[in-house]
């Protein structure tokens, strides 16, 4: 290895503008302000304008809503895995619980969809948190396996006991009054949630979360109850999943067993790996790439899951940092070869 490249190594340095915009000089000129705001604005405007740009293709407009649902799940997964240290493979469980709660509220109590969704988000998250409470002492692989079992178990129990409509699911759920309302509320919630969570993990509570992830014994020794914080983390992540599930229910006007499906567990994980874990924006970008790919491959049936898995494996093995950290590095730093 040494010598083959003439004893050189790659050096990375922060760009001047990055250094300046880290500090108080950020507001010194429009250039610095633009440098800071441009990527964020690109993200917000890109998401917000997408439905308008695709106005001529209703099918792809629907895809944007699906992207947002998956993005919510992926953000939840990323937050839980990289900030709280709980790798939850059971995204399908959150979606399923959210979907069923919302559908039941709507069909049994006649609550309108726009009120159902926030209610289902809170109620569903409470249900998920309570059900996950016994598993919270587990870590790593063990939590991952248990959480993988939850959606399977829930689907089997509903099937076996024939409750909530059994295998037919709950039919006759009301749809949203207006397609634009449907899309923009969802897009707005994704944007708000991304920036809110990014803020949250920088606050004191975020510090404790990361402490729980890195060294829970130390957190315990500081007199902080780690179970409370883990439960809070699960509550936040599952509320995002339930929001997505509730939204799906009213979009398809149906809640059923397929909302506990493996797709909701796998695609968000793939999106997080591809987009870059720990960034909270990365998962959204991952979804923006993966979900359309999967829609394009819809004609090939189960091949799309195979393609997905190959992309996922390739990213884990060859580019484990993901797209977002890579792009951020290119944006903030320049590289050059230096002699050793």
């Amino acid at each position: 290895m040494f010598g083959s490249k003439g004893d050189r190594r790659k050096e990375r340095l922060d760009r001047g503008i990055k250094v300046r915009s880290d500090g108080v000089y950020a507001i010194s000129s429009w250039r610095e302000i633009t440098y800071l705001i441009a990527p964020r604005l690109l993200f917000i405007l890109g998401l917000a304008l997408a439905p308008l740009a695709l106005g001529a293709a209703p099918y792809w407009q629907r895809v944007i809503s699906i992207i947002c649902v998956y993005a919510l799940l992926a953000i939840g997964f990323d937050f839980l895995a990289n900030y709280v240290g709980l790798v939850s493979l059971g995204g399908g469980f959150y979606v399923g619980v959210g979907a069923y709660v919302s559908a039941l509220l709507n069909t049994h109590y006649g609550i309108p969809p726009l009120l159902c969704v926030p209610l289902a988000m809170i109620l569903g998250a409470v249900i998920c948190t309570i059900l996950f409470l016994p598993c919270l002492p587990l870590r790593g692989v063990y939590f991952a396996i248990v959480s993988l079992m939850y959606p399977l178990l829930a689907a089997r129990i509903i099937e076996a006991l024939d409750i909530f409509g059994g295998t037919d699911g709950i039919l006759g759920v009301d749809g949203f009054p207006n397609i634009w309302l449907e899309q923009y509320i969802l897009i707005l919630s994704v944007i708000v949630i991304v920036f809110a969570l990014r803020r949250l993990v920088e606050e004191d509570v975020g510090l404790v979360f990361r402490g729980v992830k890195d060294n829970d014994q130390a957190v315990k020794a500081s007199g902080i109850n780690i179970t409370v914080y883990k439960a809070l983390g699960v509550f936040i992540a599952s509320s995002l999943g339930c929001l997505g599930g509730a939204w799906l229910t009213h979009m398809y006007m149906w809640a059923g067993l397929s909302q506990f499906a493996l797709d909701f567990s796998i695609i968000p994980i793939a999106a997080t790996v591809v987009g870059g874990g720990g960034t909270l924006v990365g998962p959204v970008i991952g979804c923006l790439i993966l979900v359309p790919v999967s829609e394009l491959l819809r004609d090939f049936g189960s091949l799309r899951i195979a393609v997905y898995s190959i992309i996922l494996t390739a990213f884990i093995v060859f580019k484990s940092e993901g797209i977002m950290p890579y792009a951020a590095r290119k944006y903030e730093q320049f590289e050059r070869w230096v002699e050793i």
Partner: protein
Amino acid sequence: MDIIIYGIINSVSLALMAVGFTLVYGVSRLPNFAHGALYVLTGYLTWLLMYRLGLNYFLAALLALALTGLIGAAMYQLVLIRVRGMPISEIIASYAIGLAILEGLRWGGLKGGTFRLPPFIEGSVLIFGVSVDFQRIFVVVLGSALMGGLWLFVNNTKLGLALKGMAQDERAALTLGIDSDRMAVVATAIGSMLAGAAAIILLPLGSIVVESGYHVLIMAVAVCIVGGLGSWTGAVFAAFIIGFAQIITVVFLGAHFQVVVALLAIVVTLVSRPSGLFGRQKELEERV
């Protein structure tokens, strides 16, 4: 009597499904989530070799086993070795490989009940007044033989002892000149072949379907967790506990609850006794 005989058959099948998974995990601490996929793959390869190339059943099965072993080894050598020591990446990567194999097979035309392996010998026999077909007897006999053979292999051959050493203490094994990466490749290959052997013994009871890949994976994970990950005796005991529990629920509650039992067993075990029935105590602190 029904319960006892079918309980034993079911338990041995479960043990067969789980033994490969627990071997790989025991040796290299790698949860091989592609286990179920390798199971289905071997069945399909045997079918292909038999009906497309016209090989004899026995030869086809052996060749399919060898191929599966190679695929398992390649999988470890090319992909999994790079993510070793990162448990979550290991799970995601091996699960993704498994999904790719399974869904690729489904896309390649493996659907419906048209793919069947013939039983070794047709017919059935009455044991204590319960009718049991020969294939199920083969499951018990071959399953026990396979596990006995594995036990002998691990305790009496040099390679087997090296694997055991790795499983007990990787660092100590390294100081004694056991190449841990090579052993992990060997373990993955053997584990894959065990999944394949289970497929060849069990698949003649039904048809080769993609779904059984997921089912086998869930069962293998359930058995290994209840028994304590990486513990072989634990896995066999757990297979009997879950196997009998399943048959009893089928008799008294209905077939729907069969999988619920296994899943509940995982959740209850992990929550109450994370290291499983026979898991080693020292690992407890890593988990909880």
